């Protein structure tokens, strides 16, 4: 395991280093699909410059990172490239360990269980999917801070899987502090930790509520500490509207691969607040139904939540997508039940190729307009949603087969087919 992993790391680092030094790095760091106003490196440099001048980095609407990030980069700005590569490696190690721990299910049908041999290769596959994913490489070369966010989320997942309640709460609060959306990962974390400690998920039991109170205390406590620390670092509260207000109220409508920009560009002011609420609730809304359905399988719930966040957040980039795509090899045993994988991969591939073409036609050639670019954005997001819902279907179907047997027969003995109603 160590040798292929090291080889993989070497290849990944080489590719990134080569791209860092080439002329493509400036081109990539300006692509709107790879950087967003929240994560762009140009803006971090701008914020650092303002900080050095003694002015609040949040004056002017340029910088939207949290104060801890700015101080982190204050010390690391010369080693920026190395930082990003290290965060990538850290990410990979975390994912690898997580993958080893996941999914030990009781065995019913021989065909559906995974052999230890298959599971042995999963961490390597996860590492490969993350490191060699072109989306990750582009994100790293553009020095988007998305890589750091991904690293924190990966640390959170690792600490949850290991069963460490305190660390899980701390990392989750760090992730929420960076961007609000990982708040929804509270639910799967709680479910997993309760499962590990054999606390039944029952509203009437006192142990259930006691655990929730403990976790909430740790989470809110660390969040409070971090927020106050940020206040003391910069001496003012104006990072709150700059960071969280920016994420929630979406004032910047630069085109990206998300769904917000086109709608809000053409919206009348009168309705803006309403639709803003609708779009933001959409991200958080799926927590409750998914938690109820997947309360026995919190690890899959984490995957679903990550995917939902990446698709519906206000400023997604390809770095967010690569995070949940890195988890796909963990569910490789679901491949036989996936129905649309061919269509989804073709559409994702075609859309990724068409993004720069239509951007060129819109901005440089002037022959197209924003409708064309948004059409590709919509298609891309539809393909992602189809992918996620396909995996969900496959997961549920496998559970069904585990309970009722693999080859179903109708009452008269002929082979039955399962139809999702």
């Amino acid at each position: 395991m160590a040798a292929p992993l090291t080889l993989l790391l070497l290849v990944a680092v080489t590719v990134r280093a080569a791209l860092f030094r080439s002329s493509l790095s400036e081109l990539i760091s300006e692509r709107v699909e790879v950087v967003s106003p929240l994560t762009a490196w140009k803006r971090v440099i701008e914020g650092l410059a303002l900080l050095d001048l003694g002015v609040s980095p949040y004056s002017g609407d340029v910088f939207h990172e949290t104060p801890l990030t700015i101080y982190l980069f204050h010390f690391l700005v010369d080693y920026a490239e190395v930082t990003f590569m290290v965060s990538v490696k850290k990410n990979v190690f975390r994912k690898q360990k997580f993958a080893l721990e996941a999914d030990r299910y009781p065995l019913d049908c021989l065909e559906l269980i995974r052999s230890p041999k298959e599971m042995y290769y999963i961490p390597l596959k996860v590492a490969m999917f993350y490191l060699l994913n072109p989306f990750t490489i582009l994100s790293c070369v553009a020095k988007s801070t998305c890589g750091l966010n991904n690293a924190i989320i990966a640390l959170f997942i690792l600490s949850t899987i290991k069963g460490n309640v305190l660390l899980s709460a701390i990392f989750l609060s760090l992730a929420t502090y960076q961007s609000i959306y990982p708040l929804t990962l509270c639910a799967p974390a709680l479910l997993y930790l309760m499962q590990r400690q054999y606390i039944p998920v029952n509203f009437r039991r006192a142990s259930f509520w006691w655990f929730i109170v403990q976790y909430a205390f740790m989470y809110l406590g660390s969040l409070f500490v971090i927020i106050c620390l940020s206040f003391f670092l910069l001496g003012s509260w104006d990072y709150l509207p700059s960071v969280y207000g920016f994420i929630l109220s979406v004032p910047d409508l630069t085109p990206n691969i998300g769904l917000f920009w086109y709608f809000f560009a053409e919206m009348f002011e009168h309705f803006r607040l309403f639709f803003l609420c609708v779009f933001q609730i959409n991200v958080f809304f799926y927590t409750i139904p998914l938690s109820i359905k997947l309360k026995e399988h919190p690890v899959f719930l984490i995957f679903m939540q990550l995917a939902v966040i990446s698709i519906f957040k206000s400023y997604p980039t390809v770095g967010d997508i690569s995070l949940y795509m890195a988890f796909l090899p963990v569910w490789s045993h679901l491949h036989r039940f996936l129905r649309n994988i061919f269509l989804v991969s073709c559409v994702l591939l075609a859309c990724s190729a068409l993004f720069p073409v239509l951007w060129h036609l819109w901005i440089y050639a002037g022959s197209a307009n924003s409708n064309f670019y948004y059409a590709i954005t919509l298609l891309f997001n539809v393909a992602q949603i189809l992918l996620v819902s396909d995996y969900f279907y496959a997961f549920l179907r496998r559970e069904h087969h585990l309970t009722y047997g693999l080859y179903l027969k109708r009452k008269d003995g002929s082979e039955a087919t399962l139809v999702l109603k």
Partner: protein
Amino acid sequence: MGLLSDPNRRRALISLLTRLNTPICIVCYMAGVAWFMGLAFEPFTLRTYMSENAMGSTMVEERFPAGERALATGREFSAHKKRTGGMPVEWLMKTMQAKGLEVFTQRFSRTLPFPDENKERYMVRGTNVYGILRAPRAPRTEALVLSAPCSPGDNNNQAVGLLLGLAEYFRNQIYWAKDIIFLVNEHDLIGMQAWLEGYHHTNTTGMDWSPLQGRGGSIQAALSLELSSDIITSLDLVLEGLNGQLPNLDLANLFYAFCQKIGVLCTIQGKLQRNDWDSVSGYSHAVQTMMLMVMKQASGRPWGDHGLFLRYHIEAATIKGVNSFRQYKTDATTIGRLLEGMYRKLNNLLERLHQSYFFYLMPSLSHFVSIGYYMPAFGLLAVILLLRALDLWVQLSTPPQRTEDGSSPGVLSLLTPLVISHLTGVALYMLPIRFQEMAVEHFPVSETEAVVLTAIAVYTLLSPGTEQGWRVLKLVAVLYLAVLLGCTALINFSLGFILALTLVPVAAFVTPHVPKVLSAFILVILSPACTLLFSVFFFQELQEMPISFQDGWLLFLSVISQGILDHSLYGSLVYPLITLLVYPCWLLFWNILFWN
């Protein structure tokens, strides 16, 4: 989504598609080709019409009187040009200043990567001269450009003369709302590129130029004039620009409307429009005109000095005066009136031309085919690739133990052909220029291609593989080709369609089990290089100047060298596209054919 979730209907549809895969592919191919040929048939096209309101309704009375004086100026220009042996900069500056323009010059120099044999230049050094007519009553925010090239020998003297005559006439009018820039550029496209880069403060091609001292506002439209005789019989409109980009159709409509009004014969692709569309010869005439436009657009080179303006979102066209054996002759005053009318209409624009189509094909000057009508032809060809991909996917998923893409033995045998073919593409891209630095003689493109092809042939004949492996490689190659052709067709439809015509049959039929020698022969015939060779011969046929095989071969080599020069001088994308993306894709299919 009943189709995606109902397993019975899905299974039925998929089995239908896999059973009838080959017949459907053949039908789609024939339908695509038939659709494309049918585009030139007149009832399927639309008449052109002016879409921009600001240019439609004003009545303009053209009064340009001084055609003879313009020709005299042209003769003076020619004399001074002969005397200085290049651009007569002082004379031009003096003349333009006398006519009341603000005159500026720009120097530029460029060393070509290798000597250009067509135009016989290697280290180019020159000067552009331009004069700005300031709009008397408007703020200086917008501009129009009229340009004429300073060509060696006896060419385009009358164009410069007419430009100066128009400058003098325009200077006395009070209705101009935009600045007009009269530009005389040296070394045609290189000078134009230097001027445009200086005007827009960009430097994408590594040319050396002095900054522009004077500017107008943002340029709304530009016309380039090519006139080499005192009397003409028809005016030819050239639209194709760099990378197959076309100006807004309204510019062509404007030209056609004025030609009708003034009574000048106008042609496109050098062919006059015919009225008998229902006869075979009439239809073939329209097809020839359309195919000439397709070939010119697919080459990706600018076919007039206007071609470089389009990249900066400036609508531009070239008007060429043609003197051939026709009865009715037009003099310079009439051409001046036509240009005056066009510029007065362009003066009325409130915003850039954007109402009409940017993507179109013209079987004649009064009829056009828009993107909505010609894209289905390409779509039918792309569907073939998707059907094949679906077929392969189904074949790959049916055996009970299929190796997944992630498992180790499959990945390596898939990656090796991909990496090697792309490395070959990179070599083909970089070697011709590197070899030129070492070899001093003629341009060694044929040697390079021969070496590369031999290397690949040797490699592919020795590579091992599994029965499943070639299916996976073919799936990847077919999807790669589909995405590549789709993106190409969006940017340059003609290039995408021509590549699709030859590469889609290759992609569809090639497997390791077809007869090797015959398939290898067909693969070579349909390769990008041979397609280019056939296109060269076809292009000459369409222009009614057929050439012999020897001349054709030399022309083919010069076309390749021109492609490389265009790429390094103006940023044309055809050469990198073919070498870095299309050629590796073709090599993958070669690899599949020789899979063991």
